[in-house]
Protein backbone atom coordinates (compact mmCIF):
# COMPACT_ATOMS: atom_id res chain seq x y z
CA UNK A 1 0.00 0.00 0.00
CA UNK A 2 2.72 2.44 1.01
CA UNK A 3 4.82 1.63 -2.06
CA UNK A 4 1.90 2.63 -4.26
CA UNK A 5 1.82 6.07 -2.71
CA UNK A 6 5.59 6.41 -3.00
CA UNK A 7 5.36 5.49 -6.67
CA UNK A 8 2.55 7.96 -7.30
CA UNK A 9 4.60 10.61 -5.51
CA UNK A 10 7.65 10.01 -7.69
CA UNK A 11 5.57 10.02 -10.87
CA UNK A 12 4.29 13.53 -10.12
CA UNK A 13 5.98 16.43 -11.92
CA UNK A 14 8.52 18.32 -9.85
CA UNK A 15 6.43 21.48 -9.68
CA UNK A 16 3.54 19.56 -8.13
CA UNK A 17 5.84 17.79 -5.67
CA UNK A 18 7.27 21.09 -4.49
CA UNK A 19 3.78 22.57 -4.40
CA UNK A 20 2.57 19.78 -2.14
CA UNK A 21 5.59 20.19 0.09
CA UNK A 22 4.96 23.93 0.38
CA UNK A 23 1.33 23.23 1.26
CA UNK A 24 2.45 20.67 3.82
CA UNK A 25 4.51 23.37 5.53
CA UNK A 26 2.18 26.32 5.07
CA UNK A 27 -1.13 24.90 6.26
CA UNK A 28 0.15 23.54 9.56
CA UNK A 29 2.03 26.82 9.97
CA UNK A 30 -1.12 28.87 9.52
CA UNK A 31 -2.97 26.59 11.92
CA UNK A 32 -0.12 27.09 14.36
CA UNK A 33 -0.42 30.84 13.95
CA UNK A 34 -4.16 30.70 14.60
CA UNK A 35 -3.73 28.65 17.76
CA UNK A 36 -0.78 30.76 18.83
CA UNK A 37 -3.14 33.72 19.10
CA UNK A 38 -5.43 31.56 21.19
CA UNK A 39 -2.54 30.40 23.35
CA UNK A 40 -1.52 34.00 23.84
CA UNK A 41 -4.91 35.01 25.14
CA UNK A 42 -5.08 31.97 27.38
CA UNK A 43 -1.56 32.28 28.78
CA UNK A 44 -1.80 36.00 29.44
CA UNK A 45 -5.22 35.47 30.97
CA UNK A 46 -3.87 32.77 33.28
CA UNK A 47 -0.96 34.97 34.33
CA UNK A 48 -3.44 37.72 35.17
CA UNK A 49 -5.55 35.25 37.17
CA UNK A 50 -8.26 35.19 34.52
CA UNK A 51 -9.35 32.20 32.46
CA UNK A 52 -9.17 33.69 28.97
CA UNK A 53 -11.57 32.89 26.14
CA UNK A 54 -13.60 29.78 26.89
CA UNK A 55 -16.98 30.29 25.27
CA UNK A 56 -16.56 29.25 21.63
CA UNK A 57 -16.39 25.49 21.43
CA UNK A 58 -15.17 23.19 24.18
CA UNK A 59 -12.93 25.23 26.51
CA UNK A 60 -12.73 27.93 23.82
CA UNK A 61 -10.86 25.78 21.30
CA UNK A 62 -12.83 27.18 18.35
CA UNK A 63 -12.10 30.80 19.26
CA UNK A 64 -9.43 31.40 16.55
CA UNK A 65 -11.79 30.01 13.91
CA UNK A 66 -14.54 32.32 15.11
CA UNK A 67 -12.09 35.24 14.96
CA UNK A 68 -11.02 34.34 11.44
CA UNK A 69 -14.60 34.03 10.23
CA UNK A 70 -15.49 37.36 11.78
CA UNK A 71 -12.55 39.12 10.15
CA UNK A 72 -13.27 37.53 6.79
CA UNK A 73 -16.77 38.90 6.67
CA UNK A 74 -15.83 42.39 7.70
CA UNK A 75 -15.54 45.14 5.16
CA UNK A 76 -12.09 46.33 4.11
CA UNK A 77 -12.23 50.08 4.41
CA UNK A 78 -9.81 52.08 2.29
CA UNK A 79 -9.37 55.60 3.62
CA UNK A 80 -9.85 58.57 1.32
CA UNK A 81 -6.63 59.80 -0.29
CA UNK A 82 -4.89 56.55 0.58
CA UNK A 83 -2.60 55.04 -2.03
CA UNK A 84 -4.95 52.29 -3.05
CA UNK A 85 -2.56 49.75 -4.54
CA UNK A 86 0.15 50.21 -1.95
CA UNK A 87 -2.44 50.11 0.82
CA UNK A 88 -3.55 46.68 -0.35
CA UNK A 89 -0.08 45.36 -1.18
CA UNK A 90 1.38 46.25 2.23
CA UNK A 91 -0.18 43.38 4.24
CA UNK A 92 0.98 40.88 1.64
CA UNK A 93 4.50 42.32 1.80
CA UNK A 94 4.40 41.87 5.56
CA UNK A 95 3.23 38.27 5.45
CA UNK A 96 5.16 36.89 2.46
CA UNK A 97 8.70 37.06 3.91
CA UNK A 98 7.54 35.52 7.17
CA UNK A 99 6.19 32.53 5.26
CA UNK A 100 8.92 32.32 2.61
CA UNK A 101 11.66 31.98 5.21
CA UNK A 102 10.21 28.59 6.22
CA UNK A 103 11.51 27.17 2.93
CA UNK A 104 14.95 26.70 4.44
CA UNK A 105 14.03 25.78 8.02
CA UNK A 106 15.18 22.22 8.74
CA UNK A 107 12.59 20.41 10.83
CA UNK A 108 14.76 17.31 11.06
CA UNK A 109 17.94 16.10 9.44
CA UNK A 110 16.10 15.16 6.25
CA UNK A 111 12.89 17.16 6.47
CA UNK A 112 13.72 20.47 4.84
CA UNK A 113 12.17 21.97 1.73
CA UNK A 114 15.29 23.63 0.31
CA UNK A 115 18.62 22.63 1.82
CA UNK A 116 20.53 25.55 0.32
CA UNK A 117 24.07 26.45 1.12
CA UNK A 118 23.59 29.96 2.46
CA UNK A 119 20.29 29.36 4.21
CA UNK A 120 21.27 31.54 7.16
CA UNK A 121 21.83 34.50 4.85
CA UNK A 122 18.59 33.70 3.06
CA UNK A 123 16.68 33.88 6.33
CA UNK A 124 18.40 37.12 7.27
CA UNK A 125 17.62 38.69 3.90
CA UNK A 126 13.97 37.67 4.06
CA UNK A 127 13.42 38.87 7.59
CA UNK A 128 14.92 42.21 6.59
CA UNK A 129 12.22 42.53 3.92
CA UNK A 130 9.42 42.38 6.46
CA UNK A 131 9.92 46.04 7.29
CA UNK A 132 8.58 47.11 3.90
CA UNK A 133 5.08 45.94 4.72
CA UNK A 134 5.12 48.11 7.81
CA UNK A 135 6.55 51.23 6.15
CA UNK A 136 4.31 51.03 3.11
CA UNK A 137 1.24 50.43 5.25
CA UNK A 138 2.03 53.46 7.36
CA UNK A 139 2.70 55.69 4.40
CA UNK A 140 -0.16 54.51 2.19
CA UNK A 141 -2.76 54.91 4.93
CA UNK A 142 -2.50 58.69 4.73
CA UNK A 143 -2.89 58.91 8.49
CA UNK A 144 -0.55 60.54 10.94
CA UNK A 145 -0.88 57.81 13.54
CA UNK A 146 -0.14 55.13 11.00
CA UNK A 147 2.81 57.11 9.70
CA UNK A 148 4.27 57.66 13.16
CA UNK A 149 3.83 54.00 13.96
CA UNK A 150 5.53 53.00 10.73
CA UNK A 151 8.46 55.32 11.41
CA UNK A 152 8.93 53.98 14.90
CA UNK A 153 8.63 50.41 13.84
CA UNK A 154 10.95 50.77 10.85
CA UNK A 155 13.66 52.47 12.90
CA UNK A 156 13.34 49.78 15.53
CA UNK A 157 13.45 46.90 13.08
CA UNK A 158 16.48 48.29 11.27
CA UNK A 159 18.31 48.83 14.56
CA UNK A 160 17.65 45.40 16.01
CA UNK A 161 18.28 43.61 12.74
CA UNK A 162 21.93 44.58 13.01
CA UNK A 163 22.22 43.13 16.50
CA UNK A 164 20.43 40.00 15.33
CA UNK A 165 22.69 39.68 12.33
CA UNK A 166 25.78 39.98 14.51
CA UNK A 167 24.43 37.39 16.94
CA UNK A 168 24.03 35.03 14.01
CA UNK A 169 27.56 35.82 12.85
CA UNK A 170 28.69 34.44 16.21
CA UNK A 171 26.72 31.26 15.55
CA UNK A 172 28.16 30.80 12.11
CA UNK A 173 31.66 31.34 13.48
CA UNK A 174 31.05 28.63 16.03
CA UNK A 175 29.47 26.23 13.55
CA UNK A 176 31.67 27.12 10.60
CA UNK A 177 28.74 26.93 8.24
CA UNK A 178 25.97 29.06 6.79
CA UNK A 179 23.73 26.07 6.32
CA UNK A 180 21.06 25.75 9.01
CA UNK A 181 21.10 21.97 8.85
CA UNK A 182 24.84 21.86 9.42
CA UNK A 183 24.54 24.37 12.24
CA UNK A 184 22.18 21.99 14.02
CA UNK A 185 24.39 19.00 13.25
CA UNK A 186 27.31 20.86 14.83
CA UNK A 187 25.33 20.95 18.08
CA UNK A 188 24.84 17.18 18.32
CA UNK A 189 25.57 15.27 21.51
CA UNK A 190 23.48 16.65 24.33
CA UNK A 191 22.39 19.99 25.67
CA UNK A 192 25.87 21.00 26.81
CA UNK A 193 26.82 21.10 23.13
CA UNK A 194 24.06 23.53 22.25
CA UNK A 195 25.26 26.99 21.43
CA UNK A 196 23.26 28.78 24.07
CA UNK A 197 25.91 27.91 26.65
CA UNK A 198 29.12 29.09 24.94
CA UNK A 199 27.29 31.87 23.14
CA UNK A 200 25.09 32.88 26.07
CA UNK A 201 25.36 36.68 25.51
CA UNK A 202 24.51 36.21 21.85
CA UNK A 203 21.59 33.98 22.81
CA UNK A 204 20.15 36.65 25.08
CA UNK A 205 20.76 39.35 22.49
CA UNK A 206 19.14 37.26 19.79
CA UNK A 207 16.09 36.43 21.85
CA UNK A 208 15.50 40.01 22.99
CA UNK A 209 16.19 41.38 19.52
CA UNK A 210 13.73 38.84 18.20
CA UNK A 211 11.08 40.24 20.51
CA UNK A 212 11.96 43.77 19.38
CA UNK A 213 12.09 42.79 15.74
CA UNK A 214 8.57 41.42 15.79
CA UNK A 215 7.28 44.56 17.55
CA UNK A 216 6.07 42.59 20.52
CA UNK A 217 5.67 43.76 24.09
CA UNK A 218 7.70 45.19 25.79
CA UNK A 219 9.00 46.65 22.52
CA UNK A 220 5.60 47.32 20.97
CA UNK A 221 5.87 51.11 20.74
CA UNK A 222 5.09 50.75 17.05
CA UNK A 223 1.51 50.03 18.03
CA UNK A 224 1.54 51.73 21.42
CA UNK A 225 -2.19 51.90 22.01
CA UNK A 226 -1.97 54.71 24.49
CA UNK A 227 -0.03 57.03 22.17
CA UNK A 228 -0.70 56.26 18.54
CA UNK A 229 -3.85 54.14 18.66
CA UNK A 230 -2.60 51.03 16.88
CA UNK A 231 0.41 52.16 14.90
CA UNK A 232 0.87 51.32 11.28
CA UNK A 233 -2.29 49.25 10.96
CA UNK A 234 -4.82 51.73 12.40
CA UNK A 235 -6.57 52.17 9.08
CA UNK A 236 -6.79 48.47 8.29
CA UNK A 237 -9.90 46.41 8.86
CA UNK A 238 -11.23 42.99 8.03
CA UNK A 239 -9.02 40.58 6.18
CA UNK A 240 -6.29 43.16 5.47
CA UNK A 241 -5.87 43.62 9.21
CA UNK A 242 -5.98 39.86 9.70
CA UNK A 243 -3.08 39.45 7.29
CA UNK A 244 -0.99 41.87 9.37
CA UNK A 245 -1.96 39.93 12.45
CA UNK A 246 -0.98 36.67 10.78
CA UNK A 247 2.34 38.20 9.73
CA UNK A 248 3.16 39.27 13.26
CA UNK A 249 2.49 35.84 14.71
CA UNK A 250 4.14 34.01 11.81
CA UNK A 251 7.21 36.15 12.42
CA UNK A 252 7.16 35.25 16.10
CA UNK A 253 7.02 31.55 15.30
CA UNK A 254 9.79 32.02 12.74
CA UNK A 255 12.02 33.76 15.26
CA UNK A 256 11.30 30.97 17.75
CA UNK A 257 12.23 28.35 15.17
CA UNK A 258 15.45 30.18 14.34
CA UNK A 259 16.34 30.48 18.02
CA UNK A 260 15.81 26.74 18.40
CA UNK A 261 17.98 26.00 15.38
CA UNK A 262 20.78 28.41 16.22
CA UNK A 263 21.04 28.05 19.97
CA UNK A 264 18.93 25.16 21.24
CA UNK A 265 20.12 22.33 19.04
CA UNK A 266 17.21 22.09 16.60
CA UNK A 267 15.89 18.54 16.49
CA UNK A 268 18.65 17.13 18.72
CA UNK A 269 17.51 15.49 21.96
CA UNK A 270 18.78 17.14 25.15
CA UNK A 271 20.84 14.06 26.03
CA UNK A 272 22.19 11.60 23.52
CA UNK A 273 20.90 8.62 25.51
CA UNK A 274 18.30 5.91 25.24
CA UNK A 275 15.01 7.39 26.49
CA UNK A 276 15.61 10.73 24.77
CA UNK A 277 16.66 9.35 21.41
CA UNK A 278 13.47 7.28 21.15
CA UNK A 279 11.47 10.44 20.66
CA UNK A 280 11.57 11.50 17.00
CA UNK A 281 13.53 14.66 16.20
CA UNK A 282 10.56 16.61 14.92
CA UNK A 283 8.90 16.30 18.33
CA UNK A 284 11.99 17.77 19.97
CA UNK A 285 12.04 20.55 17.39
CA UNK A 286 8.44 21.57 17.92
CA UNK A 287 8.70 21.07 21.67
CA UNK A 288 11.58 23.53 21.88
CA UNK A 289 9.80 25.84 19.46
CA UNK A 290 6.75 25.87 21.72
CA UNK A 291 8.99 26.67 24.69
CA UNK A 292 10.54 29.70 23.00
CA UNK A 293 7.17 30.80 21.63
CA UNK A 294 5.82 30.59 25.19
CA UNK A 295 8.61 32.92 26.27
CA UNK A 296 7.25 35.59 23.91
CA UNK A 297 3.87 35.41 25.66
CA UNK A 298 5.47 35.32 29.08
CA UNK A 299 7.43 38.49 28.29
CA UNK A 300 4.27 40.22 27.16
CA UNK A 301 2.46 39.28 30.35
CA UNK A 302 5.33 40.48 32.52
CA UNK A 303 7.08 43.59 31.25
CA UNK A 304 5.74 47.12 30.86
CA UNK A 305 6.38 48.89 27.58
CA UNK A 306 9.84 50.29 27.02
CA UNK A 307 10.25 53.99 26.36
CA UNK A 308 11.15 54.68 22.75
CA UNK A 309 14.54 56.36 23.28
CA UNK A 310 15.51 53.53 25.62
CA UNK A 311 14.66 50.98 22.95
CA UNK A 312 17.00 52.75 20.57
CA UNK A 313 19.69 52.99 23.22
CA UNK A 314 19.42 49.30 24.04
CA UNK A 315 19.68 48.34 20.39
CA UNK A 316 22.54 50.56 19.33
CA UNK A 317 24.54 51.12 22.47
CA UNK A 318 24.16 47.85 24.34
CA UNK A 319 23.33 44.96 22.04
CA UNK A 320 25.57 45.78 19.10
CA UNK A 321 28.67 46.32 21.28
CA UNK A 322 27.92 43.15 23.24
CA UNK A 323 27.67 41.08 20.07
CA UNK A 324 30.80 42.66 18.61
CA UNK A 325 32.80 41.93 21.75
CA UNK A 326 31.61 38.34 21.89
CA UNK A 327 32.40 37.81 18.21
CA UNK A 328 35.89 39.07 18.96
CA UNK A 329 36.12 36.70 21.92
CA UNK A 330 35.06 33.74 19.80
CA UNK A 331 37.47 34.63 17.04
CA UNK A 332 40.39 35.13 19.40
CA UNK A 333 39.61 31.96 21.34
CA UNK A 334 39.29 29.87 18.21
CA UNK A 335 42.43 30.99 16.46
CA UNK A 336 44.88 32.14 19.12
CA UNK A 337 44.17 30.09 22.25
CA UNK A 338 43.73 26.41 22.99
CA UNK A 339 40.18 27.10 24.28
CA UNK A 340 38.68 27.17 20.80
CA UNK A 341 36.95 23.84 21.48
CA UNK A 342 34.61 25.65 23.86
CA UNK A 343 33.03 27.43 20.94
CA UNK A 344 32.54 24.57 18.54
Amino acid at each position, binding site marked *: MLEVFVEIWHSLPLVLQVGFKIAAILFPLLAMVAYYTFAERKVIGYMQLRVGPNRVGPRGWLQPIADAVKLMFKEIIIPTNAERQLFLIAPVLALAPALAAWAVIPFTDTLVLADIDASLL*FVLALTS*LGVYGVIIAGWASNSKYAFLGAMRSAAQIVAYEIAMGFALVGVLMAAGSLNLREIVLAQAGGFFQWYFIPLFPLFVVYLVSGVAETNRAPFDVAEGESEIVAGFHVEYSGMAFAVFFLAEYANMILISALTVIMFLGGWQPPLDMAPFTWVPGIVWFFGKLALVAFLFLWFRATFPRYRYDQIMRLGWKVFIPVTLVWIGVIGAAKFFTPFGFLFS
Partner: protein
Amino acid sequence: MNFLQFSFYLFSVILIVAASLVVTVRNPVKAVLYLVLVFFSAACIWLTLEAEFLAIVLVLVYVGAVMVLFLFVVMMLDIDVARLREGFTQYLPAGLVIAGVMVAELAVVMLSGRFSLDAIPRPVGRGADYSNTRELGLVLYTDYVYAFEIAALILLVAIIAAISLTFRRRGGTKVQVIAEQLRVTKADRLRIVKMSSEITDGEKSQ
Protein backbone atom coordinates in the same frame (compact mmCIF):
# COMPACT_ATOMS: atom_id res chain seq x y z
CA MET B 1 14.11 28.26 -24.28
CA ASN B 2 14.82 26.46 -21.05
CA PHE B 3 13.78 27.52 -17.59
CA LEU B 4 17.01 29.37 -16.90
CA GLN B 5 16.69 31.50 -20.00
CA PHE B 6 13.05 32.15 -19.29
CA SER B 7 13.81 33.35 -15.78
CA PHE B 8 16.66 35.50 -17.05
CA TYR B 9 14.41 37.26 -19.54
CA LEU B 10 11.60 37.56 -17.03
CA PHE B 11 13.79 39.20 -14.40
CA SER B 12 15.50 41.37 -17.01
CA VAL B 13 12.19 42.68 -18.28
CA ILE B 14 11.01 43.40 -14.74
CA LEU B 15 14.31 45.09 -13.99
CA ILE B 16 14.26 47.32 -17.05
CA VAL B 17 10.60 48.27 -16.67
CA ALA B 18 11.09 49.04 -12.98
CA ALA B 19 14.27 51.00 -13.67
CA SER B 20 12.54 53.18 -16.24
CA LEU B 21 9.65 53.68 -13.83
CA VAL B 22 12.10 54.87 -11.18
CA VAL B 23 12.92 57.91 -13.26
CA THR B 24 9.49 58.52 -14.78
CA VAL B 25 7.08 57.95 -11.93
CA ARG B 26 5.95 61.17 -10.26
CA ASN B 27 5.67 60.08 -6.69
CA PRO B 28 9.13 59.91 -5.07
CA VAL B 29 8.06 57.19 -2.63
CA LYS B 30 6.90 55.03 -5.50
CA ALA B 31 10.17 55.72 -7.28
CA VAL B 32 12.07 54.37 -4.29
CA LEU B 33 9.83 51.31 -4.19
CA TYR B 34 10.52 50.67 -7.87
CA LEU B 35 14.21 50.97 -7.12
CA VAL B 36 13.71 48.26 -4.51
CA LEU B 37 12.16 46.12 -7.21
CA VAL B 38 15.16 46.81 -9.44
CA PHE B 39 17.55 45.60 -6.76
CA PHE B 40 15.43 42.57 -6.14
CA SER B 41 15.34 41.59 -9.81
CA ALA B 42 19.07 42.14 -10.07
CA ALA B 43 19.54 39.82 -7.09
CA CYS B 44 17.39 37.21 -8.83
CA ILE B 45 19.52 37.45 -11.99
CA TRP B 46 22.65 36.99 -9.91
CA LEU B 47 21.07 33.92 -8.38
CA THR B 48 20.71 32.39 -11.83
CA LEU B 49 24.46 32.99 -12.24
CA GLU B 50 25.06 30.90 -9.06
CA ALA B 51 26.30 34.00 -7.24
CA GLU B 52 24.00 33.35 -4.29
CA PHE B 53 26.16 35.15 -1.73
CA LEU B 54 26.22 38.38 -3.71
CA ALA B 55 22.53 38.11 -4.51
CA ILE B 56 21.51 37.61 -0.89
CA VAL B 57 23.84 40.32 0.34
CA LEU B 58 22.39 42.69 -2.23
CA VAL B 59 18.94 42.03 -0.81
CA LEU B 60 20.15 42.14 2.78
CA VAL B 61 22.16 45.35 2.53
CA TYR B 62 20.55 47.40 -0.19
CA VAL B 63 16.94 46.30 0.04
CA GLY B 64 16.87 45.58 3.75
CA ALA B 65 18.81 48.55 5.06
CA VAL B 66 19.85 51.22 2.56
CA MET B 67 16.54 51.53 0.79
CA VAL B 68 14.68 51.62 4.09
CA LEU B 69 16.69 54.69 5.07
CA PHE B 70 16.01 56.14 1.61
CA LEU B 71 12.30 55.59 2.11
CA PHE B 72 12.55 57.26 5.49
CA VAL B 73 14.00 60.42 4.00
CA VAL B 74 11.74 60.51 0.97
CA MET B 75 8.58 59.97 3.00
CA MET B 76 9.40 62.86 5.26
CA LEU B 77 10.06 65.24 2.39
CA ASP B 78 7.27 67.37 1.04
CA ILE B 79 8.35 67.51 -2.55
CA ASP B 80 6.66 70.03 -4.81
CA VAL B 81 6.83 68.48 -8.27
CA ALA B 82 5.70 71.64 -10.05
CA ARG B 83 8.55 73.67 -8.65
CA LEU B 84 11.06 70.97 -9.49
CA ARG B 85 9.94 71.13 -13.09
CA GLU B 86 10.35 74.86 -13.42
CA GLY B 87 13.79 74.84 -14.99
CA PHE B 88 13.22 71.65 -16.94
CA THR B 89 13.55 73.08 -20.47
CA GLN B 90 16.36 75.35 -19.41
CA TYR B 91 18.54 72.49 -18.19
CA LEU B 92 17.41 70.03 -20.84
CA PRO B 93 20.25 70.67 -23.34
CA ALA B 94 22.96 70.28 -20.72
CA GLY B 95 21.30 67.14 -19.38
CA LEU B 96 21.03 65.65 -22.86
CA VAL B 97 24.69 66.35 -23.59
CA ILE B 98 25.78 64.67 -20.35
CA ALA B 99 23.52 61.70 -21.00
CA GLY B 100 24.88 61.41 -24.53
CA VAL B 101 28.47 61.46 -23.27
CA MET B 102 27.69 58.74 -20.74
CA VAL B 103 26.03 56.54 -23.35
CA ALA B 104 28.99 57.03 -25.68
CA GLU B 105 31.47 56.12 -22.97
CA LEU B 106 29.52 53.00 -22.07
CA ALA B 107 29.29 52.05 -25.73
CA VAL B 108 33.04 52.45 -26.19
CA VAL B 109 33.71 50.21 -23.22
CA MET B 110 31.13 47.61 -24.15
CA LEU B 111 32.13 47.42 -27.81
CA SER B 112 35.85 47.30 -27.13
CA GLY B 113 35.75 43.52 -27.08
CA ARG B 114 36.78 43.17 -23.49
CA PHE B 115 33.23 42.26 -22.54
CA SER B 116 32.37 40.13 -25.53
CA LEU B 117 31.40 36.51 -25.09
CA ASP B 118 34.84 35.41 -26.21
CA ALA B 119 36.65 37.55 -23.65
CA ILE B 120 34.50 36.38 -20.74
CA PRO B 121 33.88 32.67 -20.90
CA ARG B 122 30.57 31.29 -19.85
CA PRO B 123 30.74 30.52 -16.10
CA VAL B 124 31.03 26.83 -15.46
CA GLY B 125 28.25 25.19 -13.49
CA ARG B 126 29.47 23.97 -10.13
CA GLY B 127 28.40 21.02 -8.07
CA ALA B 128 26.00 21.22 -5.17
CA ASP B 129 28.83 21.18 -2.62
CA TYR B 130 30.46 24.28 -4.12
CA SER B 131 30.15 27.14 -1.66
CA ASN B 132 30.15 30.54 -3.27
CA THR B 133 30.50 32.19 0.11
CA ARG B 134 33.56 30.18 1.10
CA GLU B 135 35.31 30.86 -2.21
CA LEU B 136 34.57 34.56 -1.98
CA GLY B 137 35.87 34.69 1.58
CA LEU B 138 39.03 32.82 0.65
CA VAL B 139 39.78 35.23 -2.18
CA LEU B 140 38.96 38.30 -0.13
CA TYR B 141 41.12 37.35 2.82
CA THR B 142 44.10 35.96 0.90
CA ASP B 143 44.70 37.47 -2.54
CA TYR B 144 43.00 40.78 -1.91
CA VAL B 145 43.45 41.14 1.81
CA TYR B 146 45.17 44.53 1.66
CA ALA B 147 42.67 46.03 -0.75
CA PHE B 148 39.86 44.65 1.37
CA GLU B 149 41.21 45.95 4.66
CA ILE B 150 42.02 49.35 3.19
CA ALA B 151 38.51 49.63 1.77
CA ALA B 152 37.13 48.75 5.20
CA LEU B 153 39.33 51.37 6.82
CA ILE B 154 38.26 54.04 4.34
CA LEU B 155 34.62 53.22 5.05
CA LEU B 156 35.24 53.48 8.77
CA VAL B 157 36.95 56.84 8.35
CA ALA B 158 34.04 57.99 6.20
CA ILE B 159 31.54 56.97 8.87
CA ILE B 160 33.43 58.77 11.61
CA ALA B 161 33.94 61.82 9.42
CA ALA B 162 30.27 62.00 8.54
CA ILE B 163 29.28 61.72 12.17
CA SER B 164 31.80 64.28 13.40
CA LEU B 165 30.87 66.73 10.65
CA THR B 166 27.17 66.62 11.41
CA PHE B 167 27.38 66.11 15.15
CA ARG B 168 27.17 69.31 17.14
CA ARG B 169 26.42 69.89 20.76
CA ARG B 170 23.72 72.43 21.31
CA GLY B 171 23.44 74.22 24.57
CA GLY B 172 20.32 73.84 26.62
CA THR B 173 19.45 70.32 25.61
CA LYS B 174 18.43 68.02 28.39
CA VAL B 175 20.11 64.66 28.58
CA GLN B 176 19.31 61.68 30.71
CA VAL B 177 22.10 59.75 32.30
CA ILE B 178 20.67 56.28 32.03
CA ALA B 179 23.31 54.71 34.26
CA GLU B 180 22.29 57.05 37.05
CA GLN B 181 18.64 56.26 36.49
CA LEU B 182 19.38 52.58 36.71
CA ARG B 183 21.41 52.96 39.88
CA VAL B 184 18.48 54.45 41.74
CA THR B 185 17.13 52.28 44.52
CA LYS B 186 13.88 52.33 46.39
CA ALA B 187 15.53 54.07 49.35
CA ASP B 188 16.50 57.10 47.24
CA ARG B 189 13.01 57.86 46.03
CA LEU B 190 10.56 56.56 48.56
CA ARG B 191 10.04 57.58 52.18
CA ILE B 192 7.67 55.45 54.16
CA VAL B 193 5.87 57.33 56.94
CA LYS B 194 4.24 55.34 59.70
CA MET B 195 0.88 56.71 60.79
CA SER B 196 -2.25 55.31 62.31
CA SER B 197 -5.24 54.87 60.11
CA GLU B 198 -7.58 56.79 62.44
CA ILE B 199 -7.09 60.20 64.01
CA THR B 200 -6.23 59.75 67.63
CA ASP B 201 -7.26 62.17 70.37
CA GLY B 202 -3.74 63.52 70.69
CA GLU B 203 -3.64 64.55 67.03
CA LYS B 204 -7.12 66.07 67.14
CA SER B 205 -6.14 68.65 69.70
CA GLN B 206 -3.36 70.06 67.54
